[in-house]
């Protein structure tokens, strides 16, 4: 059995000079993450080391790009209008919006930085994926856990599903792992993906983790 790490959570103190990290690492998430990813150098030796560690570990990584896109790129109005969410009941969307915390709010002055940072996150995920692709000995696996809001039982924060964010990073839709209502929302996601031409990328949708 493996463990599954959710979210790309790279801290400043592991990638940046400590003086810089100390100014950013303790900020609220909505400020911290854009500022960190603005400064991260994906070509640095430290990122190469992180990727190597992940590749050699037995840890599954769920990058939760849907959550990141929700937090850093899409505003509430954009999410509501997003074609991927058009099949969701309005009450689900309203529930998701009601769960927003001020800690996750990206200040207006950092919106563009956050958008660029999200792009960099996807590049990082692509680097992980490419590492696996070129090194057959790697153990880590990326999991496109579509961590979507599933009201009313899902109290965790999370992003509304946006498949392009995952597709752009080169993912396949392997599964939807929430226990609460995975079949129903999974069906929605799969049908949307098929409609949008991602049919070949849609894999299993089930109520359990995919294992190697």
């Amino acid at each position, binding site marked *: *059995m493996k463990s*599954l790490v959710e979210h790309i959570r790279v801290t400043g103190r592991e990638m940046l000079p400590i003086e810089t990290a100390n100014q950013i690492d303790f900020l609220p998430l909505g400020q911290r993450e854009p500022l960190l990813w603005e400064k991260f150098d994906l070509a640095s030796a430290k990122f190469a080391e992180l990727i190597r560690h992940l590749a050699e570990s037995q840890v599954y990584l769920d990058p939760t790009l849907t959550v990141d896109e929700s937090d850093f790129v899409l505003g509430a109005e954009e999410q509501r209008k997003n074609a991927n969410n058009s099949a969701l009941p309005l009450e689900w969307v309203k529930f998701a919006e009601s769960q927003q915390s001020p800690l996750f709010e990206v200040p207006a002055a950092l919106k563009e930085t956050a958008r660029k940072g999200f792009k960099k996150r996807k590049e990082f995920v692509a680097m992980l994926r490419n590492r696996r692709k070129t090194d057959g000995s790697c153990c880590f696996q990326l999991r496109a856990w579509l961590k979507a809001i599933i009201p009313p039982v899902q109290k965790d924060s999370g992003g509304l599903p946006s498949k392009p964010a995952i597709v752009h990073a080169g993912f396949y839709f392997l599964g939807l792992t929430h226990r609460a209502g995975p079949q129903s929302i999974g069906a929605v996601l799969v049908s949307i993906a098929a409609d949008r031409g991602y049919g070949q990328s849609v894999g299993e949708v089930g109520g359990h983790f995919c294992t190697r």
Partner: protein
Amino acid sequence: MVDSPERARSAVNFLADQGVDFVKVYNNVTEPVLAEIIETARQRGLIVAEHIPRSMMMTRRSTLA
């Protein structure tokens, strides 16, 4: 509150006895506690899904299988 490896082991065993499918860990655990959760879960055939604890870096976390 799971604040020691002993309590971590006890909590995971309790959950396993209830028939859960996996164990979810959030941010506020220490590395020894997380290590014990992972090990006990492994022994009980459960997957651990987690946020990286605030006390750990991602690189360090990847060394705990």
